[in-house]
């Protein structure tokens, strides 16, 4: 049944976190060099093209979240760590990248391998 106004406003205050309270061990720790995989599935994926098959460094570990690729396809939550991965602008854009500049992107563990 439809939620009423009071329930709707209460729901905005709570939200719906994608964080999962599951004891999943991280595969990577901050400071570790990693490489993103070259993935091109036809379904939902959160690894933008501009950071595929690139070298970066784990900047921080955000904890465990629902994996959207499986969640969007009705294949379950597959909870796993999400990391901030730091890339140099030169790694992503070559000579067009700023010499000192960096990109920091949230990346699910399934998109990463050791660098």
């Amino acid at each position, binding site marked *: *049944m*439809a*939620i*009423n*106004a*009071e*329930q*709707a*406003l209460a*729901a*905005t*205050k*709570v*939200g*719906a*976190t*994608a*964080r999962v309270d599951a004891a999943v061990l991280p595969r990577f720790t901050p400071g570790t060099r990693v490489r993103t995989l070259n993935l091109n599935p036809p379904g939902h994926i*959160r*690894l*933008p093209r*501009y950071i595929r098959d690139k070298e970066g460094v784990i900047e921080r570990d*955000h904890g465990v*979240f*629902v994996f959207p690729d499986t969640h969007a396809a009705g294949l379950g939550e597959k909870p796993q760590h*999400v990391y*901030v991965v730091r890339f140099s602008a030169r790694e*992503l*854009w070559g000579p*067009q*990248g*700023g010499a*000192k*500049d*960096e*990109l*920091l*992107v*949230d*990346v*699910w563990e399934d998109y990463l391998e050791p660098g």
Partner: protein
Amino acid sequence: MSANHNRPLSDVEIRVKALESLLVEKGLVDPAAVDALIDTYEHKVGPRNGAHVVAKAWMDPAYKARLLADGTAAIAELGYSGIQGEDMVVIESTPETHNVIVCTLCSCYPWPTLGLPPVWFKSAPYRSRVVSDPRGVLKEFGLELPEKMQVRVWDSTAELRYMVLPERPAGTEGMTEEQLAALVTRDSMIGVARVAVPGQEGART
């Protein structure tokens, strides 16, 4: 803002009315809930919330430390929690490093602290270019950064929502938290502007 009833509905207006009326008839959507949500996000939630967070962080070093360590919890202390702000990260800009936020895949944005995003944040030109040419994009916003300053672009591709803790401008030492909050703009918390003191160099024109 009410529709002019002498004019035919546009295609998009027809689609929205068709969808809402069907969902209401099926008992799945209560129009009063729709009205309440619109009113909340049009009039009650917005970047003044984020400005409060920033001003408190500038005034209170212990709060700032909590904010940078666990943005979600520190922002919740001030009551700005909920949908599209469930998991918050606050990034501090310094004299050495300027931070700017984007969502290249969609338009993720921290609603509880900044409200709903402006059109430019959701637009293809901003999302495509700020990652590859951040300095050029910032120039379009009137912000020219020195070469020696590092730019860090944060692409919020996951379920974390980001906001920037901008640098506190010089000349604000005697200000109260309320006066500081009044200086903090939405754009400075996205990272496409710095906070300026009116009348001083660097103020947005």
